[in-house]
């Protein structure tokens, strides 16, 4: 091992990435929890945490650029750092989505929910797990794991469609619930979007490991 500085710095960035990842996971869980429990305080916490996540992105981004500038990583190392630099943007966006969810929570704070929230927390749970596991796969550089996680996106899509249809039905039945349903629709859409970002992370993990974007498990 001839370039300890390179590996120290790379590891450092890695750790920051994980830190940011756990911040984002927390944001997802908190946002849904606050929605479920009408926990406005928690929702505000999520909104506040977004700026922290943004700052985190800026810091890691800066570190990536400085790392490339100083250490001139190549091949695998370079792919990894480039992926990280994009991944943090995705994480930041996930944070944005959580912020949006939290904002919706605050909008809904005075309304009684049309029904107990079951499916949305379920999908949220799935999504947050997906984010966690995809980051895990990246850190472990486990392409096969990433491919498996990538597949769960289909499940989420299914659930999303089911929720969409259910909410549409509810709206058509009771127009007083339109605002709430539309809001829930948006929240679900945000969650679906977060799942997309997680699939993105999986794809990038595979790319980093293997140098291309082939997501077929058989390969």
């Amino acid at each position, binding site marked *: *091992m*001839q*370039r300890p500085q*390179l590996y120290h710095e790379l590891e450092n960035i890695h750790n920051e990435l994980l830190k940011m990842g756990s911040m984002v996971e927390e944001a997802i869980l908190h946002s849904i929890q606050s929605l479920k429990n009408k926990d406005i305080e928690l929702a505000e916490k999520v909104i506040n945490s977004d700026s922290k996540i943004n700052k985190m992105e800026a810091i890691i981004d800066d570190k990536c650029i400085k790392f490339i500038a100083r250490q*001139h*990583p*190549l*091949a*695998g*190392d*370079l*792919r990894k750092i480039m992926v990280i630099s994009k991944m943090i943007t995705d994480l930041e966006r996930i944070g944005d989505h959580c912020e949006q969810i939290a904002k919706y929570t605050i909008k809904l704070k005075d309304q009684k929910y049309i029904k107990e929230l079951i499916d949305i927390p379920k999908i949220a749970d799935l999504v947050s797990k997906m984010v966690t596991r995809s980051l895990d796969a990246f850190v472990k550089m486990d392409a096969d794991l990433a491919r498996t996680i990538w597949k769960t996106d289909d499940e989420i899509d299914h659930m999303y469609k089911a929720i969409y249809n259910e909410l549409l039905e509810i709206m058509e039945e009771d127009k007083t619930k339109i605002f709430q349903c539309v809001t829930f629709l948006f929240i679900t859409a945000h969650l679906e979007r977060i799942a997309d970002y997680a699939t993105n992370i999986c794809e990038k993990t595979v790319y980093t490991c293997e*140098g291309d974007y082939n997501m077929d498990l058989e390969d």
Partner: protein
Amino acid sequence: MDTKIKIRNLNLYYGNFQALSDVEMDIYDNKITALIGPSGCGKSTFLRTLNRMNDLIGSVKIDGNVLLDNQNIYEKDYDVIRLRRKIGMVFQKPNPFPKSIYENIVYGPRIHGTKEKQKLDEIVETTLKEVALWDEVKDRLKKPAMGLSGGQQQRLCIARCLAVHPEIILMDEPTSALDPVATLRIESLLEELVKKYTIVIVTHNMQQAGRVSDYTSFFLNGKVLESDETDIIFSNPNNKKTEDYITGRFG
């Protein structure tokens, strides 16, 4: 894309030491091929088999084929002098002869029988322009070449080599004795030259291989471990050892 030189199954021994083992490589026309690898990996030795400069060393033994335009240059009775006119060489240290700038350039043409002053003058001007040195030295062609800066000397050496109209130019770490600015000038010159010539360059400096070459071959212990487009070698090499070398995990 035409293959200019085909190397097949090349082995080279210094006495009992095998310096090159089963080297196979294609060198493409009008492309820059870079040879990289750690010290002692055989890259310079390999370069010197291409114009038979290794013939100068007593105890060398070579087998295998080096096909230049489909003719084996190690064939018996192959005309080494003609080979070396066809394949120019630029060395690690700028090595202009201790003569004037003019005399340096016309050395090759004179050796090969060009005597007319007018023709020689023409050659001097053309080649110096080719290496972007003309404007810098046109007023002092009769001054000693040693008075030039290192980078200028190296460009003069390239011009001297162009003066015999080679088809291929071999470069053995042409910038390792130069400062960064002069290095970049030579590198940008390469980009021009490759339009007319086929270039093979040995370099110690991996970054340089990255910057200038179209193809890169990675040598290790006298073997070619990987040979591919430079893009691929630098961003996504196939061989683990190549990646280790490239990323500095080596040794």
